[in-house]
C-alpha cells in the first residue's frame, strides 16, 4: 500500500502526531528490544522500523509471570499478603491494601481510625519511593546518569523511614486484616517532617538539573503523545492517564481509608506527552508530601490506641497488650493462621504509584480464597506502546518507555 495511512486502529478521525505511519511491507526491519535489554526490563517490545522510524510496535509481556492468582488459591488468606507484595516490592503497601480491604469487606470489619492513618502513611511513603525509582530508571534511559543517582539516593530516605516503621526495607507486609502490624515508633514523625522538608528542597534541585534542563525538554516535549480519548479507550491508569487530562484518581473518585478527610489536590495535566508525564509525577510527589504532613500531625495529636479491629483485639491476652504498649507491635492472634472468610464476593480498588489496581476476591467459606483476580496498573499501561510508538524514531523509544513508568513484575503477576 502506498501513501500515508494511520497506524492506530479505531481512531480514524484523530490526527495523532504519533499515529501517522508509512506502511511499507518490504523494507521493514524487525528489531527485538528485550527481554534482557537493560532498557526494557523483563519485557520485549518487537518493533518494525523503516529506516529509523518505528512503523509497528508490539509489546510482548509475560516474562516474569509467577501464577500469583493460582498460587493464592492454595494458601490461607493471610499468606497471600506477602505473595501479592512481590508484584511491586517498592510499592508494597499500595499493592496489597486493596486485597486486605476486600477480605475485610467479606469479614464485615473495618480497620480502626489509627490503623487507617498508618496505612495512608505507608502508602504515601511507598508512592514517593516508587516515583523516585521511576525517575531513576527514566534518567538512565535518557543517558542522564545524575538523575539516575540522585533519586535512588533520595529514595533511600523513604526506604529508611519505611524500615523504621515496619521492620523491613521493602517487603513490609504491613496491612493485615482488620488493621496494621505496627504503630509508629517514638521520634518517627520528627524524622518524617525532616524528610518532607528535605524532599521539597530536592525537588527544586531536580527541577534545575532534569525537569527544566533544555536537553531533557527537547527530548521529551511532543514525544509519546497520548490523546485524551485514546487514554480512556485503552484504559490506561494512574499518572499517565492524568497527564492526558482525565480527572481520575481512585483516591478522589472512590476514596478509601482516610483519603476523603485529607486536604490534597489531584494534579491533571492537559498536554499528554512524555514531558507532561514527568511533571505529573513531580506534582504528585508534592501532593504526597502534603498528605504525609497531615498524617504526621494527626499521629502526633492522638495517643496510641489499638490498631487491630476489636473482633481480633478483644481476644488479646495481657502479654499482647504489654508488647503493644512497650514496642508498638500488634501481635497477631492465632486465628489469623486458620481464618475462615464467609462466603461472598468482594471487589476493591486502590491507587498505586503506577495507577489503579483492583482485586476481585471470591470466598466459598473455606480457609483459602476460591478465586483472586488481580488487575494491575502496569498491565493496563503496557498496551499503550502499541499505539504511541509508531511514528517515532528508535531514539524516542527509551524516552517513551521510561515516561510510562512500566513495571514488568507488576504487569505479569
Amino acid at each position, binding site marked *: 500500500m502506498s501513501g500515508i495511512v494511520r497506524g492506530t486502529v479505531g481512531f480514524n478521525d484523530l490526527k495523532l502526531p504519533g499515529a501517522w505511519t508509512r506502511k511499507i511491507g518490504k523494507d521493514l526491519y524487525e528489531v527485538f528490544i528485550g527481554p534482557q535489554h537493560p532498557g526494557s526490563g523483563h519485557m520485549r517490545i518487537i518493533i518494525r522500523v523503516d529506516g529509523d522510524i518505528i512503523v509497528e510496535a508490539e509489546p510482548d509481556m509475560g516474562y516474569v509471570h509467577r501464577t500469583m492468582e493460582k498460587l493464592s488459591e492454595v494458601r*490461607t488468606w493471610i499468606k497471600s499478603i*506477602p505473595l501479592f507484595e512481590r508484584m511491586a516490592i517498592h510499592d508494597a503497601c499500595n499493592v496489597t491494601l486493596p486485597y486486605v480491604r476486600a477480605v475485610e469487606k467479606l469479614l464485615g470489619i473495618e480497620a480502626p481510625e489509627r490503623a487507617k492513618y498508618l496505612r495512608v502513611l505507608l502508602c504515601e511513603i511507598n508512592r514517593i519511593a516508587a516515583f523516585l525509582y521511576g525517575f531513576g530508571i527514566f534518567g538512565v534511559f535518557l543517558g542522564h546518569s545524575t538523575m539516575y543517582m540522585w533519586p535512588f*539516593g533520595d529514595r533511600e530516605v523513604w526506604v529508611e523511614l519505611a524500615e523504621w516503621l515496619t521492620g523491613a526495607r521493602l517487603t513490609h507486609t504491613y496491612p493485615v486484616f482488620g488493621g496494621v*502490624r505496627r504503630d509508629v515508633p517514638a521520634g518517627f514523625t520528627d524524622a518524617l517532617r525532616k524528610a518532607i522538608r*528535605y524532599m521539597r528542597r530536592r525537588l527544586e534541585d531536580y527541577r534545575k538539573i532534569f525537569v527544566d534542563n533544555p536537553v531533557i525538554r527537547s527530548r521529551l516535549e511532543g514525544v509519546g503523545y497520548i490523546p485524551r480519548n485514546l487514554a480512556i479507550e485503552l484504559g490506561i491508569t494512574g499518572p499517565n492517564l492524568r497527564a492526558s487530562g482525565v480527572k481520575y484518581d481512585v483516591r478522589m473518585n472512590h*476514596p478509601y481509608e482516610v483519603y476523603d478527610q*485529607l486536604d*490534597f489536590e489531584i494534579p491533571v495535566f492537559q498536554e499528554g506527552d512524555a514531558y507532561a508525564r514527568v*511533571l505529573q509525577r513531580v506534582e504528585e510527589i508534592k501532593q504526597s508530601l502534603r498528605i504525609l504532613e497531615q498524617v504526621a500531625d494527626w499521629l502526633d495529636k492522638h495517643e496510641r490506641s489499638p490498631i487491630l479491629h476489636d473482633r481480633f483485639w478483644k481476644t488479646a491476652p495481657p502479654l499482647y497488650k504489654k508488647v503493644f504498649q512497650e514496642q508498638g507491635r500488634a501481635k497477631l492472634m492465632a486465628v489469623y493462621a486458620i481464618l475462615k472468610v464467609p462466603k461472598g464476593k468482594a471487589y476493591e480498588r486502590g491507587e498505586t504509584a503506577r495507577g489503579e489496581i483492583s482485586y476481585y476476591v471470591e470466598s466459598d467459606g473455606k480457609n483459602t480464597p476460591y478465586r483472586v483476580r488481580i488487575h494491575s496498573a502496569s498491565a493496563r499501561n503496557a498496551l499503550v506502546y502499541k499505539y504511541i510508538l509508531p511514528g517515532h524514531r528508535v531514539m524516542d523509544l527509551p524516552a517513551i518507555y521510561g515516561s510510562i513508568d512500566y513495571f514488568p513484575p507488576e504487569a505479569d503477576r
Partner: protein
Amino acid sequence: MPPRPVEKHVHPRGIFSRFKGNLEAIAIGVKYFFDPKRSTLIYPKEYIKLREGYRGFIVLVKNKCISCSSCARICPAAAMKMVKVPVTDPKTGKQRIKKFPVINYNRCIFCGYCVDVCPTEALYHVPYHDIVYESMEEAVTDLESFQKEPEYKTAKEGLPVRYIVDEVKGLVKIRVKKEGGEKK
C-alpha cells in the same frame, strides 16, 4: 477537605529559557561538586546497626515455647517446621513427645508473621541480616542452632554506623555504640 482535581499546564519555554536552563543545570552540578552529598557505606569496615524492631534472623526461646504450632501454620513460605523431641515432664517426671519449631533460612522471607503470632513471645528477631552461609545445608537450622543467636561476624570486624534523616543532607551517617544508644 476532600481531594479535588486541579488543572495544570506545562509552562511554555521563554526566550531565554534555554540559556537559563543550561546555566541552572551547570550551577547545580558545580554546587554539588564542591559540596557533595555522600552517604556511602564502606561496608566491611562499617556496617549499619539496625534499629530494634528490625525483622532480621529469628531465634527461639525454648523454655517459653508451648508447642502450639501457630508459627509453622502461619508461615507463608513453609520455612518453619515442627520437630518432635522427647522431653521429660517436670511435674510428673514422665517421658513424652513435645514439638518445637525449626527454621529453614533457604525458604524464609522474613515477614515476621511467626514472631507476631507466637502467643508467648518465644520467638524474637535479632536486628541484623547480613550472614553468609557456606552451604544450603547450613541454612537449615536444627533445634540447637535455632536457639542460639547467629554469629554476626560483620559486627566483630566493622564499626557500627546508622543513617539518620537530615533536613539538608538527606541521610547522614553517624557513628553509634556497639551496644545500646547513639554516640555523639
